[in-house]
């Protein structure tokens, strides 16, 4: 129960075909099928949960967050670009863009600067868009 593939900057993780870390030099944590993370995490890089990896708690990351297909995450999330293709229960803040893929299921309140939802995705909760300066909002 734990996993960290935090990779140093210049060593992008290629496991999931992503090369973001190569581009922006951020570290990345990837939780795979046998991994689980519970608790509170504050992290400067990207975070990916995929293949059934488990994550529960509160995660605030400086980079992007991706929740892969078939993965269920119960957490309060905060990241720059957040991509959800699996399921998320909990509040979510995307400082930049939130993307819900067609198999995504999200229940929880959402705050995002930009929002894109594909047909097939399901979302239940309040949505607020706009710049983050005003995130406190109503």
């Amino acid at each position, binding site marked *: 129960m734990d996993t960290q593939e935090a990779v140093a900057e210049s060593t992008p993780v290629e496991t999931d075909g992503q090369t973001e870390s190569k581009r922006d030099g951020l570290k990345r944590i990837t939780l795979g099928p046998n991994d689980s993370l519970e608790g509170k995490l504050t992290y400067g890089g990207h975070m990916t949960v995929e293949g059934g990896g488990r994550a529960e708690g509160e995660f605030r990351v400086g980079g992007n967050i991706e929740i892969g297909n078939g993965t269920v995450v119960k957490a309060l999330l905060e990241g720059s670009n957040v991509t959800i293709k699996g399921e998320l229960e909990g509040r979510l803040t995307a400082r930049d*863009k939130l993307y819900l893929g067609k198999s995504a299921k999200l229940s929880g309140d959402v705050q995002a600067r*930009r*929002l*894109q*939802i*594909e*047909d*097939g*995705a*399901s*979302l*239940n*909760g*309040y*949505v*607020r*868009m*706009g710049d983050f300066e005003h995130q406190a909002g109503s």
Partner: protein
Amino acid sequence: MIGQVYIEGDLRVAGVVEGEVEVTGNVEIDDVAKVKASVSGGDVSVRGHLTGPVVARKRLIVARSGALIGDVRAARLVIQDGATFSGKISMGGSFEAPAPAKPAETPPVALPEPEPEPQPMAVMPEVAAVKPASEPKPQAAVPAPAPVKPTPAAAAPMAAARADGGKVIGKAGGKAKAAPPPKGKPKRR
């Protein structure tokens, strides 16, 4: 236009509408449209500005040019990148029931006086009721005594309500559509 629109068929809005819109078919809100109303329909696509609660029995699409502020219930939901959305989203089950029921009750309410003319404009035998000024905005005083024109040129007071055989025609000229001649319509936002 200001008032209520109930249509059996589809509706396309290309002007300013305030009040309530209920459509058995699909609703399209064009880029130039500004709607401040509760809207319900099968497929609802928003490319303009819509403020108000929305029920989409089938699918709600907020295109990149669209802005929707209001609570939403939809069976399926698509929001394109670039769109603006704010409100509560409820998806999945349960709203099917109320939706159909509601339209039924609306028609009974008599229309004030607006529809004297047998004109083609009002055409839709099915456009059940277009009530201007019923209850929405205070300012909605006199609907337009003016006869509705079939011609696009003339500003049809209730142009918005136009539907042809299930097919809808919004108004051609973006604003022509919803311009009630008599009232200075308060073009909201």
